[in-house]
């Protein structure tokens, strides 16, 4: 596939199409805005003897300006988040004011007659080097603070504006080399029409968040950042995974049509929302939504979700800088529970670690975060923190529409330990006479191959399974889902993955529990008939995908779905499997659809 194609519009500007990985559907048309957070290039310059005082003054002015900025951030953090966290910025201000650096900078400007930014950068580098010579483990963090301060000051010396995502308030399409999940949480939907990043894969958490916030996004653009300028007119197509720079009128028209079409289709499909997801021969599939933030429950209901199949509670954590208190968690869970009542909510306990970095949990750098200390592993090591979450969850359950789910379970002992902690919290609540659902359903995410293969023993300890295909695929195929070089190896239709899914469903049913699926695959129209045929009881996906999946389920019979599943499970290559699925889909729903 060609990376880009070039044509010229009538102003003779080059119209270029870049292709990346589609991350969140929808079309955005607007002006590009480059998020420039790179270290800027600082050049060495000589100044005249009589300019030295001016240069020193420039340096002092930049110090003042930077101090004012940091002070503002500090005040904001103190007021809106936590006065304790403001201390970090007090520390940054002290670093900024430290004469260890500043005296040396002024001295050196006089001596070398170099420009202030060049001298400052050199002195900071030397200071960091002296710090690095110690063997301290926490040094990295300290250097981060020094870097944050010094890059802010260099920006001010050069007169470049420093930007946070919250401060963007005119509608733009954001272009960045990389974004963190927390960045996305901070985006204002009315000002960020869409975004593109150079790194990332289809199921990175940045992509998942964008989808749930319904912000069109393309990731894995490789070098788009270097090819584009702020204020250029661009089109971003998150469905196809394309970015068009300087579109000509015809292209613009085309995409405007596409944008309207996608919007219309969304409306049309949302009319399906009152109907149940039931096959023609009356096999009912529970179709629910995955959410990240309490407010996502509204759009879940709007698109006809029959419940919340996965509430990724760790985003409560990512939206702020410290672990949410029991009260904050309770309020978030309660908000969702009462919004969807009498429908139910599956609360998944914190899945921190991996690319959702949790400094405050003490999760420092790990060579292999996805194989590391995360999710249930971290929670079992921090039982007191974990029990705060379990308590908040149980307290929300009095109306009996809450289920609890543990992530990253790899063997029965882990589940037993987690359940034992839950029992402790239950006893405590009983003792304090706080009402909760004593028969609350407790399930697990099946997302590690070992869990999929130990389905029978796990099913005896769980009330339900929910298959997390994103991690299951990555762990089965040993593919880092965020690495764009090998993203093509990340294949849900790999026969081994499908067999693990089938085995999990069968093990659940053999032991009388229901089995759902909450990964990306649940929202892939190409997979729906197959999954129904394999016997899945519930599918949980992003809200926007629900109408289309429902339409598919309502158009098939369970019997023919089972036949397709049998056929697929007998095939041995990804290509054969995809070919059959695409042909089957085209036969049913027409070729133009996908």
């Amino acid at each position, binding site marked *: 596939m060609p990376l880009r194609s070039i044509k010229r519009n009538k102003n003779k500007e080059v119209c270029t199409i870049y292709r990346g990985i589609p991350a969140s559907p929808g079309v955005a048309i607007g002006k590009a805005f480059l998020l420039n957070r790179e270290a800027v290039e600082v050049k060495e310059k000589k100044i005249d003897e009589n300019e030295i005082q001016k240069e020193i003054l420039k340096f002092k002015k930049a110090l003042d300006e930077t101090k004012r900025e940091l002070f503002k951030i500090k005040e904001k953090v103190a007021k809106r988040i936590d006065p304790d966290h403001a201390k970090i910025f007090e*520390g940054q201000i002290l*670093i900024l004011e430290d004469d*260890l650096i500043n005296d040396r900078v002024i001295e050196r400007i006089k001596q070398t007659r170099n420009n202030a930014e060049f001298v400052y950068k050199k002195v900071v580098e030397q200071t960091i080097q002296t710090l690095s010579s110690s063997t*301290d483990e*926490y040094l990295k*963090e*300290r250097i981060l603070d020094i870097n944050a301060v010094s890059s802010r000051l260099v920006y001010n010396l050069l007169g470049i504006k420093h930007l946070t995502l919250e401060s963007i308030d005119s509608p733009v399409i954001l272009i960045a080399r990389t974004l963190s999940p927390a960045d996305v949480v901070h985006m204002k939907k009315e000002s960020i029409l869409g975004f593109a990043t150079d790194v990332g894969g289809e199921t990175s958490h940045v992509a998942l968040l964008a989808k749930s916030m319904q912000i069109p996004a393309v990731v894995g653009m490789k070098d788009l950042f270097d090819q584009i300028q702020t204020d250029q007119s661009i089109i971003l197509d998150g469905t196809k995974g394309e970015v068009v720079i300087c579109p000509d009128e015809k292209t613009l028209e085309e995409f405007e049509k596409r944008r309207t079409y996608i919007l219309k289709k969304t409306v049309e499909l949302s009319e399906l929302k009152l109907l149940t997801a039931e096959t023609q021969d009356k096999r009912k599939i529970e179709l629910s939504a995955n959410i990240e933030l309490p407010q996502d429950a509204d759009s879940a209901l709007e698109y006809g979700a029959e419940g919340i199949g996965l509430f990724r509670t760790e985003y409560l954590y990512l939206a702020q800088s410290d672990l949410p208190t029991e009260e904050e968690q309770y309020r978030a869970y309660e908000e969702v529970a009462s919004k969807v009542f009498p429908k139910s909510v599956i609360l998944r306990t914190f899945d921190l670690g991996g690319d959702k970095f949790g400094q405050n949990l003490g999760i420092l750098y790990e060579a292999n975060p996805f194989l590391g200390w995360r999710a249930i592993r971290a929670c079992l090591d921090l039982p007191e923190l974990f029990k705060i979450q379990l308590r908040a969850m149980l307290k929300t359950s009095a109306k009996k529409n809450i289920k609890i789910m543990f992530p990253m379970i790899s063997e029965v002992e882990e589940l037993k330990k987690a359940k034992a902690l839950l029992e402790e919290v239950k006893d405590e609540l009983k003792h304090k006479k706080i009402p909760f659902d004593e028969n609350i359903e407790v399930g697990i995410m099946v997302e590690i191959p070992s869990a999929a293969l130990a389905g029978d023993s796990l099913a005896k300890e769980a009330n339900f399974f929910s298959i997390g295909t994103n991690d299951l695929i990555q762990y089965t195929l040993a593919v880092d889902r965020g690495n764009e070089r090998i993203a093509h190896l990340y294949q849900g239709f790999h026969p081994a993955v499908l067999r693990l899914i089938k085995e999990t469903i069968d093990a659940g049913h053999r032991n009388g529990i229901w089995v759902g699926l909450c990964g990306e695959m649940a929202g892939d129209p190409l997979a729906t008939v197959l999954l129904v045929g394999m016997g899945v009881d519930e599918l949980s996906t992003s809200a926007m995908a629900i109408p289309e999946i429902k339409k598919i389920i309502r158009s098939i019979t369970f019997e023919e779905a089972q036949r397709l599943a049998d056929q697929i499970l007998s095939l041995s290559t990804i290509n054969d499997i995809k070919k059959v699925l695409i042909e089957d889909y085209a036969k049913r729903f027409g070729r133009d659809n996908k």
Partner: protein
Amino acid sequence: MVERKVEVINKLGLHVRPAAMLVQKASKFKSEIRLQKDDLEVNAKSILSVMALAAQMGSFVIIKAEGEDEALAVEELAKLFEEKFGEE
């Protein structure tokens, strides 16, 4: 000159936040205040220097003050260490 040996008992050691508290407190005194850990001695009023001590939990730091308010300075700085810089 007044001296006192204190132990770092807060979990994360003298990272940015406690170092900031220490420097802010030290700067309120007129005395010259220095911190010593092993054979490294630094100015307690410079955050970068304090951070350079790399004082982790369990390490010992000697607070030294010289000047008109030396006794009070050592007293108050030692208190910060004892109170774990308000952590936990």
